[in-house]
């Protein structure tokens, strides 16, 4: 009885509020930019109905789900005219089929008596007229976005077979005037929380494999030193402050070791350091620059940058320091390797003429393709499902963060803080 009254009331609200919802959601859509290029894209056409009850909320769940799915490159949204829907509705799927949609998400947002939000949804296979299940999450009001990202993760996994990485976090750095800040944000760049503010530069943030800590390079003591920072508690540990420069931290997959670049014995050289701190062990010795180490996902080798051949190129070495192999062979400047979790891909920056461009190598075949047509790309980092790369670039004269699919066809600019935005690092799966 009460429920009927409630749903009838909300129907009235929806009819009255529909125009308002569209207007309100316009600015969000305008900020969100997805650029699709190229032909031959196979994308799942999907309809995402406005969630019942979301009109009263600042965060539009359906808009966040839509943005996530579009940014992944695997989906395109199809609008269909339909009545009010939620996770309990039995929708008339023929409407969506005629509109060209293969899938439908419907759901609701309810504020519970303790102030939390109850987010519920259901996914439909429109073609087979099949209920593909649903979920409900009760989250703190501040975590509405997280709930939306989890809806997107569910849809992504059901329809592509791959795990979604929307409810993960990205760290990045901003510079505004003389203020440098390290942020932890949602995977779409939104909901950024400041982890550290400093009058001196911060570079090279790197997530620990458990997603709780960030290692980074701070210049706060007027030289580069490496901190490990627990983002939940704000506690920081200075783990490398040796004579000279300390930089380029990278975590081993088990989280126990960091590979770092130290100049304490002269030159920029690679060392391994316990995450608990202590005395570093030299990984390899050379008379050249060796820097930017990253572990392979199996933890058995380290990719790094060296100018031992006369120009910076990417190399690989065993974790025991044996068997150095060159990995990049084209071009005279290849830096900043990132390895996908599935071990299949290496993203890196290659200089072509005067331009620095994001490239992708299939490691086994050595095949390379350019992923971006911008000219000041930096610091690529893979999503934990190996399906997207986030990177820093220049956009309209300002620093910006972009994501791209591995075919380079779908790119999105992430919203972020004001000022220059740089040094993205995509965190692991949480939970």
């Amino acid at each position, binding site marked *: 009885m009460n429920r009927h009254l409630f749903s009838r009331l909300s129907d009235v609200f929806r009819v009255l509020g529909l125009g308002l919802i569209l207007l309100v959601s316009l600015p969000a859509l305008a900020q969100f930019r997805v650029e699709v290029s190229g032909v031959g894209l196979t994308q799942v056409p999907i309809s995402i109905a406005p969630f019942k009850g979301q009109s009263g909320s600042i965060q539009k769940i359906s808009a966040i789900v839509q943005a996530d799915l579009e940014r992944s490159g695997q989906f395109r949204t199809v609008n269909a005219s339909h009545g009010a829907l939620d996770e309990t509705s039995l929708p008339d799927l023929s409407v969506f089929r005629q509109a060209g949609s293969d899938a439908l998400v419907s759901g609701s947002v309810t504020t519970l008596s303790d102030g939390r939000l109850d987010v519920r949804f259901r996914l439909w296979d429109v073609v087979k007229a099949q209920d593909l299940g649903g979920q409900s999450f009760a989250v703190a009001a501040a975590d509405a976005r997280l709930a939306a990202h989890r809806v997107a993760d569910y849809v992504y996994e059901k329809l592509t077979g791959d795990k979604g990485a929307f409810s993960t976090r990205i760290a990045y750095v901003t510079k505004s005037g003389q203020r440098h800040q390290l942020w932890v944000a949602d995977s779409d760049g939104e909901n950024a929380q400041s982890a550290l503010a400093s009058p001196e530069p911060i570079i090279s943030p790197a997530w620990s494999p458990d997603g709780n800590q960030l290692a980074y390079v701070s210049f706060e003591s007027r*030289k580069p030193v490496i901190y490990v920072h627990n983002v939940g508690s704000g506690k920081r540990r200075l783990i490398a402050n040796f004579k000279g420069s300390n*930089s380029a931290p990278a975590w081993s997959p088990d989280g126990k070791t960091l590979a770092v670049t130290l100049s304490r014995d002269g*030159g920029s050289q690679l060392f391994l350091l316990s995450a608990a701190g202590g005395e570093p062990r030299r990984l390899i010795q050379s008379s050249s*620059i060796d820097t930017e180490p990253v572990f392979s996902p199996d933890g058995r080798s380290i990719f790094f940058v060296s100018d031992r051949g006369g120009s910076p190129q990417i190399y690989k070495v065993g974790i025991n320091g044996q068997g150095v192999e060159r990995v990049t062979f084209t071009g005279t400047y290849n830096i900043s390797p990132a390895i996908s979790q599935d071990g299949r891909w290496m993203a890196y920056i290659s200089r072509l003429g005067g331009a620095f461009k994001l490239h992708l190598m299939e490691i086994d075949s050595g095949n390379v393709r350019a992923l971006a047509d911008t000219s000041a790309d930096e610091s690529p980092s893979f999503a934990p499902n190996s399906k997207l790369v986030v990177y820093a670039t220049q956009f309209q004269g300002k620093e910006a963060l972009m994501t791209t699919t591995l075919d380079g066809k779908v790119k999105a600019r992430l919203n972020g803080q004001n000022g220059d935005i740089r040094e993205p690092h995509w965190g692991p799966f949480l939970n």
Partner: protein
Amino acid sequence: MKNLMFALAFSAFLVGCGTTVPLSDVPVSDATANPVSGAAGANGGSGVNGSGVVPVDLGQSGSLANMPAAKRTVYFDYDSFVIKPEYQALISENARLIMGQAGRKVAIEGHTDETGGREYNLALGQKRAEAVAGALTVLGVSRNQVEAVSFGKEKPAVLGNDEAAYSQNRRAEIRYQ
């Protein structure tokens, strides 16, 4: 009094640095070094009563700390860490000043222009800093006084995306601490 002791110690240090000092003179320079440890003892409080205060004036050698950037900055060519001949006089002058103050720590801060990756530029800046630090130690500066560090492209001296700005940013600064 303290200054006098430092002065004595420095002369001893400079004499000790000379390559022509006969081995038999070494005990003498050891003897003159003793007052320095005495002074350090006073700093530590052993020779001063509880209410005594030993003033520490970090601006004591302000003429060094405030030396204009032009007199302590070495500029480099693109992608190079070779010190050009025109900077030899600047490096010699700084070496002389540093050797004149055995307790003074000096940072050599390497920088690059704003093109290229942050970490690779940090390594390039380190090479520049180490080149200048090496030139200073060749002239007799103690390695313990000098630390070569890098800021990579993080602290450009001049903003701008042209060669005029870039050439001002490819540098190593000698900074007296």
